[in-house]
């Protein structure tokens, strides 16, 4: 049931995403893959190494969680990156705080729906985790659009 709900939310999100996204596919693809990699590594470390959150252990919760982690989370982060590129310098870094707050809210919704279960997790960990995730993502986005990356020739 949650799988269908999350999939529906993703389809609705996609409508907004198409209107708001300002990035070309050739930038969007590496960013999306980077977000999948770092969120995958960080979340799995929390589930299996630190054991601060109980991982989803039913098919419905498992698929719903992966729709959240692989589609919704990167999608929202990419929109935040579009916002980052429109803002001027002092406001640019405010997107990291905005992103952390939005993702903390999402995480709470995922917890309230029973997909994940907190064990020794608290709001401080949550803030640190999402701020780090948002900061790494923005840093990667800035790097991908930097003169250093784009300047010296097209090929590696």
């Amino acid at each position: 049931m949650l799988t269908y709900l999350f999939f529906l939310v993703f389809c609705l999100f996609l409508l907004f995403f198409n209107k708001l996204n300002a990035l070309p596919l050739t930038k969007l693809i590496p960013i999306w893959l980077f977000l999948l990699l770092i969120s995958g590594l960080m979340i799995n470390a929390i589930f299996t190494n630190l054991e601060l959150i109980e991982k989803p252990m039913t098919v419905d919760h498992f698929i719903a969680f992966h729709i959240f982690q692989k589609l919704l989370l990167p999608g929202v982060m990419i929109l935040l990156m579009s916002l980052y590129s429109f803002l001027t310098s002092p406001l640019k870094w405010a997107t990291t705080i905005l992103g952390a707050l939005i993702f903390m809210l999402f995480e709470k919704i995922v917890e309230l729906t029973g997909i994940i279960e907190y064990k020794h997790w608290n709001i401080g960990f949550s803030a640190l985790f999402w701020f780090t995730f948002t900061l790494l993502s923005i840093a990667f986005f800035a790097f991908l659009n930097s003169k250093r990356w784009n300047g010296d020739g097209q090929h590696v």
Partner: protein
Amino acid sequence: MFKAPSNFDHNEWFILVSMLLLLIAFIKMPKSMPKDLTLSIFLFFAVIDLNADVLMAASYPFDFYTITDSPKLEIFDVLVYIVNYSIYGYFFAWILSKWKMGAGVFGLFIICWSGLTTLIEWTSVKFRVFTYINGWTTAYSSLCYLFIFFFSAAVIKSLFYIWDYDARAD
């Protein structure tokens, strides 16, 4: 956050030596793809392997093997995802980009590449990089590789198309 190896033994040495060889091969090989495409291919193979391991080796939904010393996510697991799998996948994409194949040759290429990957996995099992549990064998892995490389080839071909289209539009 990521666990350090409990013993620095065969599996860590196997990972380090293979990483070094892959890095040397990558540095030496001729480069022909745009930077963003190369980065996307690296990230794609890191992501697909991380997800395959999360699906098949992380207690739920399946638990068929352990990577390196423990079921925990170790520093060497992360290095394997980011460096070894990425570069190995890049070679696969590089051959696809250089060699224009018909359907038959393409099928044969996927079978051979899956066979080579199975052979590397069999060697890595000997060095205890992977420890099979719950009845898993290398034969099952070879079937998974067939699926993974067919899927990867479809994604890589799509990436080539997107970057070609973008270059023509510029």
